């Protein structure tokens, strides 16, 4: 029984799938368990890892679906690499369980785990030819010699670098070395492929190219992949799911759309994309729509869950891309009067900094008629549905 990943299913069939899932879960628990076992490739259960007194990873729970591409996204030092290394076995969690392909691997030594790891600086063996680099893992898996040669060739074809078998890594460019590192990791057919900021050492153009390439290769092989990056664009572009981390904690785990549209905390809202964070107090909340008095004095409407109680302090998050500038506001929209404080003209789009009714707002908009310049008076509008409310604990009200 395999239920396709939601992101790969046409929207219309989703409710039907949800129903099937629900039935499965209710009707028979064993069946639901079976479902879990076959589709979860990697399962971290309350994993904590400390370096001396420093807690690098705090109580992380993370289940990764088979065949999916999951990105760990977070600022430098938030514990992404540590999580990868603990899955690979290079560091040992202080507590918690790591299950890969249904097997608890906490006590399995590194060399007996079947995991492909690609390092930021590639870590190709400089004294071995490309061929020997790729064959390395196969050699230690007792693959017969002829079979090794065949697999190495196939791996090189897969990363689109045929014919470099006899070269040394130092004779290849950065992007090519990256591909060899990838080939070396996937040729052993690992249970999971771990990529630690694999693109960050490449220059911008190549990075974008490799991003697409990597995604295509991953699809072709169908390998479960955990990708680490601190680059939000990379994360949004490549992932089936994004796990946003900060200070060793998971802040949010969702599809790129979910994470972008409904950030679950102040950190996610400000780390991923540009957001306006506006402080205010709930004046009333009826039927999913709240009136909010902003600290600056203005009043707006926002979609709100029932838990947003009258009188409680909230932060309203509105994406800079969701602000309309100088357009006729749609019915029911919030509308503020303001003045352009700064304009960055980017060709097709523009970034405006707008002072509106005591607020400083950023709007990234598509230019359709003309560009507003500093000092222009404009109306800013946004729909209540584009607002996300954060409570006093900086988490999204749900």
């Amino acid at each position: 029984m395999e239920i396709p990943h939601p992101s790969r299913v046409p929207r219309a069939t989703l409710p039907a799938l949800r129903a099937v899932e629900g039935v499965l879960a209710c009707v028979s628990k064993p069946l639901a368990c079976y479902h879990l076992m076959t589709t979860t490739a990697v399962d971290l259960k309350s994993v904590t890892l400390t370096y001396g007194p420093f807690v690098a990873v705090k109580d992380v729970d993370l289940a990764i679906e088979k065949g999916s591409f999951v990105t760990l996204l977070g600022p430098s030092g938030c514990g992404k690499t540590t999580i990868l290394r603990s899955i690979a076995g290079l560091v040992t969690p202080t507590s918690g369980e790591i299950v890969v392909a249904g097997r608890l691997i906490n006590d399995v030594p590194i060399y007996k785990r079947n995991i492909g790891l690609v390092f930021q600086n590639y870590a190709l063996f400089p004294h071995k030819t490309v061929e020997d680099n790729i064959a390395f893992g196969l050699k230690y898996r007792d693959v017969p010699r002829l079979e090794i040669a065949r697999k190495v060739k196939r791996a090189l074809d897969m990363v689109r670098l045929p014919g470099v078998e006899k070269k040394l890594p130092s004779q290849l460019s950065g992007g090519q070395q990256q591909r060899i590192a990838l080939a070396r990791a996937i040729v052993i057919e690992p249970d999971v492929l771990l990529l630690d900021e694999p693109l960050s050492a490449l220059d911008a153009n190549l990075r974008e190219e490799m991003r697409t390439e990597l995604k295509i290769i991953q699809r072709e092989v169908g390998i479960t992949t955990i990708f680490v990056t601190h680059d939000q664009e990379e994360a949004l572009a490549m992932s089936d799911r994004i796990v946003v981390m900060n200070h060793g904690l998971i802040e949010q785990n969702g599809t790129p759309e979910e994470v972008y549209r409904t950030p679950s905390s102040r950190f996610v809202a400000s780390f991923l994309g540009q957001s306006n964070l506006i402080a205010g107090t709930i004046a009333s909340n009826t039927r999913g729509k709240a009136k909010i008095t902003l600290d600056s004095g203005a009043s707006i409407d926002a979609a709100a869950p029932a838990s947003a109680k009258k009188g409680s302090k909230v932060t309203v998050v509105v994406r800079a891309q969701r602000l309309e500038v100088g357009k006729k506001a749609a019915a029911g929209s919030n509308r503020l009067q303001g003045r352009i404080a700064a304009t960055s003209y980017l060709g097709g789009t523009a970034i405006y900094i707008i002072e509106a009714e005591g607020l400083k707002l950023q709007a990234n908009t598509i230019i359709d008629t003309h560009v507003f310049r500093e000092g222009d008076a404009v109306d800013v509008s946004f729909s209540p549905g584009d607002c996300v409310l954060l409570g006093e604990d900086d988490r999204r009200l749900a």
Partner: protein
Amino acid sequence: MQQTRFAWYLLAPALILLVILLVLPIIIMMIYTFYEFITAGVEQANYTAANWREFFTDSYYHLFLWKTARVAAITAIACALMGYVPAYFIWMTSFRHKWLLLLLLIVPFWISFTIRTFSWIHILGEQGAINVTLMSIGIIDSPIQMLYTEGAVIMGMIHFLLPYMILNVYVSLEGIDRDLLSAARTLGCTSAQAFREVTLPLSLPGLCAGLLLCFVLAAGSYVTPQILGGNRDALFGNLIYDTIMQQLNWPMGSTLSIVLFVLLGIVSAIYSRYMGLSTIFKGLSR
């Protein structure tokens, strides 16, 4: 053009020093090898090949050369075996003050080399620490002859050369990206296999540099065999010393010096051809 000339000006002091202190003396020695030895302390500028003929025909010298090469090789290999372990340890340790461990390697250089060599007499001698201890606990009745043997000479040279070996190996280990080890481990190596596949081959340049340095320094040494060796344990350096200082035969002494110089030069050149000398200089400049 202007720039190259300027570069030469900058190089001049170093070049002049090198010429006066190194090239010129060697040329003078080279000339001396063709002088005729009359009697102790007296030679004549007769330009004869007699010294060279003597060296090439008398097997006495060849035996000395052979023995020197053998002792130097044993010393160098022993240094490699004994030096790799501490170098590896210093590299691997998570101890935060690595510089302290490296400093400990340098500490012996604060004491004069000669004094360090003499100190072995108190350890290996008939009334030395080892013999006295063994006799007092009754394992042996009479002192063992340890001092004034080839073993003592080799030991003294290892004592003197080990830090050079450790530093050389350490420098090349330090150049190894630790992710390579992690990569090897995740690809299926045990830590011993990862050592064989990655660490050892990548630290080989440092090991070879150490071997060369130890070999050359050991082959050229004369103080250690003089102090710790018996008459039979003299090396080529002692032969030169003896020829010049005892027999006062400067022409022959020059000939032997040039021979040693050329042979060690050839060893270094062969090494440089295959490994590049830069590793040694990296090791020394630490």
